[in-house]
């Protein structure tokens, strides 16, 4: 897979919720999704991750408004499409055909009063008007079978299904038109661990079969580290770290990522002190004078309270193919402001020893994608 093989790129996206003082929910976010990749977006409630997902499909509804930036879709072998300029008719050709979505609460996203078959019909009637009734029925049964649900359920209703089965139906619907990108907004949050694992396995299997790309949104960082290729950590509407998932778990560069990683206990490892991330996120209606995470950050120093940091390549993580693809918005990684580099746990060199980065590089060599 070549580095230039993009399928979706969002640049400098800003979203505001209108009000006397607008809530700036997404602030100058740039992300890229490559073909066949799983991009994880992590962050706590209210950090703007779902708003970003809705922006990427241009599904924002008032009072939310896309106030800036561009979103470009790169069809396989075709010319790039600027989604910001599409009218509602061409948008319909893009939504669900090219980019579909699995919503957070399958309970609310499925219609309780019509059968599953009827809801599949809705998709095909809107997007494939030339499909006959028999063909629609056949395809819907095929889709259900594909996600491991008895096709006879096509006559069934949402309340007859368990939470996991409903989520499978949602995935089948998202895949109905063979999209290139599927955005999954907390698809497993309401499920218990065993069912969650089944759904994740199912997504992985379908991805191998059909080759779509996934943007996976959740607050469960431990889950994302496992399933995603690249990870964007959001805080207060901004991406504060953007890194290859496989390594960020053991070598985060941003203090907030480190805090998130320390906020869940390890199932089998040694017991350790758990700290979480004390404090609460800032009000998104405010302008941040400095780093939005500054007030909660135990590493904060001078410039953190006056200069907003921007995403910059993390020097300590520059190696091999990932050289410029690991960025963090933190003054600790800015050599001009912090000549002696970040503390050891965030990638700084501990005197007289190998950097943590080297140790990790050695462990995962060959596992890199």
């Amino acid at each position, binding site marked *: 897979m070549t580095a230039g093989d993009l399928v979706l790129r969002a640049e400098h996206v800003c979203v505001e919720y209108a009000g006397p003082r607008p809530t700036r929910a997404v602030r100058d976010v740039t992300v890229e999704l490559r073909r066949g990749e799983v991009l994880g977006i992590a962050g706590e*409630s209210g950090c703007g991750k779902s708003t970003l997902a809705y922006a990427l499909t241009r599904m924002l509804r008032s009072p939310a408004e896309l106030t800036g930036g561009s979103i470009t879709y790169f069809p396989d072998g075709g010319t790039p499409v600027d989604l910001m300029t599409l009218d509602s008719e061409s948008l319909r050709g893009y939504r669900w055909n090219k980019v579909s979505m699995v919503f957070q609460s399958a309970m609310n996203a499925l219609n309780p009063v019509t059968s599953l078959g009827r809801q599949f019909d809705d998709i095909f009637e809107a997007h494939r008007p030339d499909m006959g009734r028999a063909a629609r029925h056949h395809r819907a049964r095929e889709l259900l079978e594909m996600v491991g649900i008895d096709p006879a359920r096509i006559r069934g209703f949402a309340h007859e299904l368990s939470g996991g089965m409903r989520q499978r139906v949602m995935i089948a619907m998202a895949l109905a038109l063979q999209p290139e990108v599927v955005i999954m907004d907390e698809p497993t949050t309401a499920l218990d661990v065993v069912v969650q694992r089944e759904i994740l396995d199912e997504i992985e299997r379908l991805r191998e079969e059909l080759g779509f790309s996934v943007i996976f949104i959740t607050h469960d960082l431990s889950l994302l580290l496992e399933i995603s290729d690249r990870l964007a950590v959001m805080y207060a509407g901004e991406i504060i770290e953007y890194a290859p998932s496989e390594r960020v778990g*053991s070598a985060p560069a941003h203090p907030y990522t480190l805090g998130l990683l320390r906020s869940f*206990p390890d199932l089998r490892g040694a017991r350790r002190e758990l700290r979480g991330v004390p404090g609460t996120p800032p009000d998104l209606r405010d302008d941040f004078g400095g780093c939005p995470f500054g007030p909660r950050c135990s590493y904060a120093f001078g410039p953190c309270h006056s200069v907003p940091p921007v995403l910059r390549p993390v020097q300590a993580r520059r190696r091999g193919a990932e050289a410029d693809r690991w960025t963090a918005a933190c003054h600790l990684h800015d050599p001009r402001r912090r000549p002696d580099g970040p503390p050891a746990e965030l990638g700084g060199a501990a005197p007289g020893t190998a950097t943590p980065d080297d140790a990790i590089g050695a462990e995962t060599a060959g596992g890199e994608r």
Partner: protein
Amino acid sequence: MSVLEVRDLTVEYRQRGGARLRAVDGLSFTLQEGQTLALVGESGSGKSTVVRALGQLVKLTAGEILLDGRPAARHGPALRAYRHRVQMIFQDPFASLNPMHTVAHHLRRPLQLRQRHLHGAALDAATADLLRSVNLTPPHEIAAKHPHELSGGQRQRVAIARALATDPDVLLADEPVSMLDVSIRLEILNLLDRLKKDRNLALLYVTHDLATARHFSSEIVVMYRGEIVERGPSDEVILHPSHPYTQILSGAAPDPTASRAALAAARAMRQSARAARAAEQREADLGTGCRFRIRCPFATDICRRHPEDMGVSPGHQARCWLYATANGSGAVLPLARPDE
């Protein structure tokens, strides 16, 4: 010292048409002073019914609850006294607080239930003390707020403060953090842990998250379809899960430290196991045998008979025939068994 003891707890719900659903079947366990017992299981395993039965919000079909060794009262003023001593924290802090009332109102009422003479400045001081004990500061500002002005974590703290208002000996926490963000969960669990130590509370922590169960409890009880299938010291249960169900639960938890190759191998194994079982699952009718056998990778003919609790190691038991030959010292690990 044991505070609350449950013997053969059984709860049945009446279904439409008169059939009965046995949600909890013959459960026995003990809550100790200053200790946390974690009750773990998937959705629908009967965890919440256990909590509701202990809070006496549902009637027991059989079995008994002992508080300080004496049978718990079932009605009247004695039941009220029981509830003062056994308090609950619910899963959803958005639903468990009344949106019409201030935080102060939520705390004053239980305070006055226990201490009727409490009024005016003394009542305000007691309210502020409660809020401080759950790290909600400044207390007078928080007390005047309505639930909608608080974050999920703050609301759950208010719910905990309310539970503490009657000065209980036992706290029943039903998935207290599953509705909260990962970054906030830990603060709430650390808070519960500290309160448990400070006030010498007996804590029942109900959850489906094995990692926090291990971290915050001394003993773990695993439930499946209304019965306890495994119990033991928490490290023992998590590091050496013995019942096939516990093994599946523990295998399903995300493991951020595993390598990509290991993850892919584990996934392939799960998928083939699932395909092999799918056919049997359709024709299986539960009958009287082991309830887990239709999902169990190790099920054999003997599983048609209901297993007893078998010792795995000291203090660690699993309700599974695989351990029938174990004599307490050398347990037969099911994963080592040859496939049939």
